[in-house]
Structure formats: C-alpha cells, structure tokens
C-alpha cells in the first residue's frame, strides 16, 4: 500500500546475509534455518497481504534455548527480529524487516501441561488457539478468548495482539485470561511474568506485554486460565428494518442488566453476502441483524432469553428466532462466522478495518460511513461486535483497478479518524502493526508517543524487536501532518471534513 514506508528511528547496518547465515548455523540445526528466496516467500506477509517484504533469513527454532540463542545473537549484532505465529494478523505486525530475521514460533507448538483442578494449562506460543479448547473440552473446560481466526492463529500471536472474540464482552480479552508468560527479553534473557496466583508482585508487566505486538519480548510459554463450559447456551436472532433500532435494542438489553455471552450485529450487505454463502436462515431484506447469545445455567439462560425476546420485540424487531438446540445454534452463528469469506465472494478484494466507538455513536458513524462510501465510490459492509462497540467495516475494492487500493486505504483511514472523533479508538483488536502508524499520530499526542517509546527503551534499548511497528516516530507524525484529536475535540471543529 502507499502508506507502507519504513519508520525506523535507528538505522541498522547488520552483517551481510552470508555472515548471518553462518552465525545462525552455529546456533541452530540446518533444518531450522531458511535462506532461499523461495523458502522465504511464504513469510513475506501476514493477513494484510498488500504489505510484502522478504526478510534476510527466517528461523524456526524447536526449543526455548534456541530462541534465546538467536535473540542474543541479534542483540549483539543489532539485527532486527520479527516474531511470527501463524501470520493471520491483520495489521502487518508480522511483516518481515528487510534487514532482519523472521522468527517463526510455529514449531514451539506443544501443550505442556493441563491442570484440571487448577483450571489452567501451560502451552508453547505456537499452539493454535482452538487447540487449547479442543484439548480440555473432554474435562468440561475451555479457553474463553475466541478470535474468528481461532483455527489458525497462535496463542503467542493472541498475546501479542491482546486478541478478542465474540465472547469477550462477558469473558474478557486475552489480557483477562492469561496468568503467566515466559518472555525472552531483547538481550536473550528469560523472564517469567505474572504468576500461578491471581496477581504478581510489583508492576503489572503481564498487562503491559499483552498487546505489545512483539515489541517488548518474545513469548515462549503461556499459562492460560480455563473456564468451565457453561451448562447451557442459546442464541437469539433478531432482524430489524433499521440499524438505529438494532443499535438501540443492544442498549436496551444491557440496560436491563443482561451481559450476553455474545452480541453481534451485521448490516444489510453483510447479511446478504453471508446468507448467500452459508444459508444460515437470515432474512435478506433486513437492514440489520443481531445475534445475541446467552450462556450459564439452564434456568438463567431460559429466563434471559425470554427477557431478551421481549426487549427485541419492543425495540421493533421484524423477525425473531431462538435456537432450540446446538445444531440450530451453530447454524445461526455460521453466517456471522463466515462473514469475511462471504464478502470475499462478492468482491475481488476487501479491506478489513477495526475501530471501536461508544455504541451510542453507531447511528451517526454508520450514516457517515455511507456518505464516505458514496464519496469514494466503494461499497462497505459492516460486521460489528455490538456489545463492546468494536466495528469491522469491510471495504470492497478491486486491486486490479488502478487507484482503487489507494481509495480503499484512504476510506479506511477516514473511518478510523471518525472513530477517534466519536470518542473511540483506531484499533479494537487487530493492533497497529504497520498499517495504522499514521492513525496513531491522530490518536496520541507527541508526549504520549514519546512515553511509549520510553517504555520500548526500557525493554529493548537496541530496538531490535519488531522495530518500526506499533508506535510511529514523531518525525513520521510530523510528515504525515496528522491533526491530533485532543480530548475528542478537533482543531477548527466548524470546518467541513472529508
């Protein structure tokens, strides 16, 4: 994309590829090192594939000691390291550095220990998210954070992004469900952060590292909290002829004191695409669709569902359906879960955005988005973690048409700016990575960005860990010329924008 440009506050001059190759051979078995262009190709991008870059080398260590050895070497030689899990990230976080080493953690993929009585398990970073729940389900337990990418994404990537899922309004994000991590620091030392208890002495380093996008350390082990599988769960589908009504219905449910396990919204275009793709039974004429899942004890769920039903009716739902069994429940969810690929079927390309807004701003933000859609001549579909205000607008474009990619990108950037102005944030769960560096200049003032850089300095004085991502340099912000939105107020608020 046009915006992808290096943002390196320090200039690296690492040894040449040959020198690096022979050094790596001292540290790792041959089958853990990739140097050929064709072998490096698969690592050239993450889920945001418009950004591409080949690393000098890739390594696939099999042990924590090997990770430490590589990091120690890179620290000594000041070679950038980019950690990578499954590469499903959507902000270019795992994009390789042209002068650096890509560190693939995929071979550290063992579940080390499951403690049923303590309801926790210890895993290596390359374990896939869903594999954890699969492993403990026979014992009636599961790992709560469930990103839609959970078949593929890794626990290491989840921790680096503080990933969420459809159940996070009730069960929290990754940060609420990780108890302890082992982190390889920038100098190769191993640090244990958090504890097997509910807290640890001193500063909350666990929270600081969670969501740090691989800039503060390499996660090489994690102890995860497991929860009992709820006795019962039901999902209610409600369709509306107006998004405002649907938005209000969400507020009504929460105001009634109900915290749904999941509360998802889709707009007209997303409903149509999903229905055509998986036949979930959604009414295609609807302007908005809500999926509200309740879980807990049977009594609790049944009471809750009848309460939600009544609330949806009085909020003006045109169709209501409640799952009677798990098969119906899966079918109702299938459409939402397949929403991204469904959009992929109706457009050559799409660009997935990820902003959060206070939910009461939804009508305003959606109507502004329609204006922008008209302005750019690009369609937009919306899926929305409605319970917590996390929007995923999907901008439809065709990369083969000249200029469309740039337009999509500008449209996306405008949406994020709008999220800030609405009192929200530029990323709810996908991270800043490479993609949203410029938007960070709008969300944060220079002194705040400087404070982030100071935190980075505290962990990684040579800036070798995923350098240039997540936090823009002040220089970049000056060049970008972003207006920092101060306390929700833009300078010159009366001037028309977009």
């Amino acid at each position, binding site marked *: 994309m046009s915006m992808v440009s290096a943002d390196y506050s320090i200039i690296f001059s690492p040894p040449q590829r040959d020198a690096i190759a022979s050094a790596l051979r001292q540290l790792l078995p041959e089958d853990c090192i990739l140097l050929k262009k064709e072998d490096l190709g698969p690592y050239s991008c993450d889920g945001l594939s418009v950004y591409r870059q080949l690393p000098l080398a890739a390594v696939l260590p099999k042990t924590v000691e090997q990770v430490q050895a590589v990091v120690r070497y890179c620290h000594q030689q000041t070679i950038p390291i980019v950690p990578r899990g499954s590469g499903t990230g959507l902000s270019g976080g795992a994009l390789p550095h042209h002068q650096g080493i890509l560190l693939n953690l995929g071979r550290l993929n063992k579940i080390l220990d499951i403690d049923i009585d303590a309801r926790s398990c210890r895993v290596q970073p390359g374990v896939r998210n869903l594999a954890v729940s699969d492993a403990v389900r026979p014992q009636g337990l599961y790992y709560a954070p469930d990103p839609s990418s959970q078949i593929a994404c890794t626990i290491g990537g989840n921790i680096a992004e503080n990933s969420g899922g459809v159940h996070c309004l009730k069960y929290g994000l990754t940060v609420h469900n990780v108890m302890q991590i082992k982190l390889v620091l920038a100098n190769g030392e191993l640090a244990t952060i958090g504890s097997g208890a509910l807290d640890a002495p001193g500063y909350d*380093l666990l929270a600081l590292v969670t969501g740090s996008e691989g800039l503060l350390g390499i996660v090489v082990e994690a102890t995860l909290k497991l929860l009992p599988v709820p006795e019962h769960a039901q999902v209610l589908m409600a369709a509306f002829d107006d998004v405002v009504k649907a938005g209000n219905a969400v507020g009504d449910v929460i105001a009634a004191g109900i915290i749904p396990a999941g509360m998802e919204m889709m707009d007209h275009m997303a409903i149509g695409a999903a229905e055509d793709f998986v036949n979930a039974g959604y009414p295609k004429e609807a302007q908005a669709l809500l999926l509200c899942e309740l879980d807990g004890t049977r009594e609790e769920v049944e009471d809750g569902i009848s309460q939600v039903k009544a609330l949806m009716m009085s909020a003006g739902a045109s169709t209501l359906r409640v799952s009677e069994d798990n098969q119906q429940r899966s079918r109702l969810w299938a459409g939402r879960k397949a929403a991204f690929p469904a959009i992929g079927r109706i457009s050559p390309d799409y660009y997935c955005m990820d902003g959060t807004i206070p939910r009461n701003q939804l009508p305003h933000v959606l109507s502004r988005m329609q204006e922008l859609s008209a302005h750019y001549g690009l369609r937009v579909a919306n899926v929305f973690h409605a319970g917590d205000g996390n929007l995923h607008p999907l901008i439809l474009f065709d990369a083969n048409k000249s200029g469309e990619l740039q337009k999509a990108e500008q449209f996306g950037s405008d949406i994020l700016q709008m999220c800030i102005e609405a009192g929200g944030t530029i990323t709810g769960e996908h991270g800043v990575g490479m993609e949203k560096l410029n938007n960070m200049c709008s969300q944060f003032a220079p002194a705040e960005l400087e404070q982030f850089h100071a935190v980075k300095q505290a962990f990684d004085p040579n800036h070798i860990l995923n350098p240039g991502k997540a936090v823009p340099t002040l220089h970049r912000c000056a060049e970008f010329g972003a207006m920092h939105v101060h306390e929700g107020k833009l300078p010159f608020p009366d001037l028309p924008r977009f």
Partner: protein
Amino acid sequence: MSSDQTDKLKTRILDALENNHPVKIVGGNSKAFLGRKPVSDNEINTRVHNGIISYEPGELTLTARSGTPLKEIEAVLTDHNQMLAFEPPHFGDGATLGGTIACNLSGPRRPYSGAARDFVLGTRIINGKGEVLRFGGEVIKNVAGYDVSRLMTGAMGTLGLILDVSLKVLPRPETEITRSFEFKPGEAIAQMNAWAGQSLPVSATCFYDGRLYLRLSGSKSATLSAAQRMGGEPVLNPDRFWIDLREHSLPFFESDRLLWRFSLPGITEPLSASDAPMLIEWGGSQRWCFSSLPPAEIHQMLESVGGHATQFRHHNGISEVYHPLKPVIKLLHRNLKNAFDPNNILNPGQQYLEI
C-alpha cells in the same frame, strides 16, 4: 463539588521537579498502612481533583477524577443498578478512586469477576516529567499503544499521578444468596476449586473458623436452583458478612500482629505459616494470617508453591514489605520507573526501596 484541578496538580509536580523535592501522593489516606513509609512530606492531595466526568450506563463505562470518593461512585452506580464488579475494599471512609486503582485492591468477587486492573479502560496521568498524558480510552476494546493504564494500576503512584480513570462497570446481580458449610481447611480448599470448575453462579468464597462461606449471584432462578443443589445453611445478615470480610472488620482481623497476605495458586494445600489460623478466600488464592516467622522463610514457602507474600498491616514500613523481585524483573521495574519518572520524584520507595 466537582472540580478539575489538572493544572494545579501539574504545577505541583513541576515544582517538585524543579526543587528536586519528591512528592507523596495522597487521596483519602485510607490505605496509608499499605507499602513502605513515604520518604517525603511533600504531600499532593488528589481529593481536590474530583467528580464523575461521564457515566454511560448503556455503554457500561464510567470516567471519574482520581479524588472522587469511592462512596460517591458506588452510590451513583447503585442508582442505575450497576456496580464496580471488583468489589473494592475501602479501608476507611475517605477512600478515593485514584487510591483504589493505584493499589489495585479488589474484594471477594475478584476470582469470579476480575481485579481492579481488569476493569480499567483508560487513564489520564501526570508522569514524573510533569506531562499530562492520556492512555487507553472509554471503550471496552482498545489495543492502540501499550497498555499503560493497566501498568498504572497497582504501581502505587510510582509511575504517575493518576488524574482520571475510565472503568468498565457491570449490572448488579438480580439476586445474591449466601450459604455456609462446616469443613476442614483442606476440604474447604478442594470444595472451592471444585465449584469453580463447574458452571455455577459462584461470586465469592471464604473459609475461616471451620466454616466455608459461599455466595451465589445472578438471576433469581439460577441462584435458587444452585443453592438448592449445593445445600448448606443460610447465613445471618450475609451482606454484612461479605462487607466485613472485604473491609477486614471480621473478628479474625482484630490483632496488632503483622498481617500477611498470601497470593498463591488456589488449589495449594493449607500452609502452616503460623500458630494462628488462616483466613482463606478467593477460591483459595488469597489467604490471610498473622505470623511472626521471619519474612525470608515466608517468602520461600510461598515461592515453593508458586505464590508471593505481602506484609499487609502492622509492618514497620521500613524494610521491604512486598515480595522480593527476581533480578531480571527488578531491572525491568527500574527501567520502567526511569521511563516514567526519571528524576525519581513520584512516591519514591513506597512500593520497593529502589523504585
């Protein structure tokens, strides 16, 4: 009665910097017993900076200035049938929001709902350079930038003076039922953990004096049916019991001896750290005891089970009161302190001697 004193507080920090005169940050002074004794008498009181800035019941978010009395916040939430789900202890009449967050203190609901840090969405702070900075926000999901707000939670004011805090709030449960059971300590711990492994609306557990106390919270039907299944005996004035536990005003806490807080994996067998009995709560994860064993011995005992120990009350405030940090972690603490407060003027030594 609501007042924004950001500028005044900032001036105080800038003055402290200029005169190289460290500050001691005080809210309601209800938690002065926690941590090491302040080295400075240059007090900055945050109570002048108070008031709820925004409260959106439908969004489940509340933002207030640090000097706002906790009582005021809880009263407003109660009016809307909502609550601070981490059930913060006040430990005194004047407890403020800022002090509560700076100490990361949570009450009986902690293992089932989360700690103070779990509900912090954003903060505005003044760092040790006198800069007013905002991190996080007022929305529930936000991963832009490092999570500095949670870092402030529990940092005892050593990294920044907290100006405002945004919190996620939750609805109050429709019904709460408390039951008690006769148990031996080991069995009680096993039982607490067995309950936590099942789909039950448990919201608090506590064992002392031979009895295991259990609170269920949720819809009427769910709590009633769970209580029926679980048995036990009703407890007289249950709300009082849980408040007294939270506020350390149960008879158990009446002593002038050194009170230790043990934080450890909930399933750990009973420990014998003293001749006095222990109070066990949080599903076994938080245990209180009066002990005169040498601190080093207690630290060792806790480390051997994967936990840590704090001298909570009645310590001398001069030697370290928190669990010693591993060298590599200590270095990160020092580096972070330097990143936020390079001149060491914010509550120096209040948490650990060197930070």
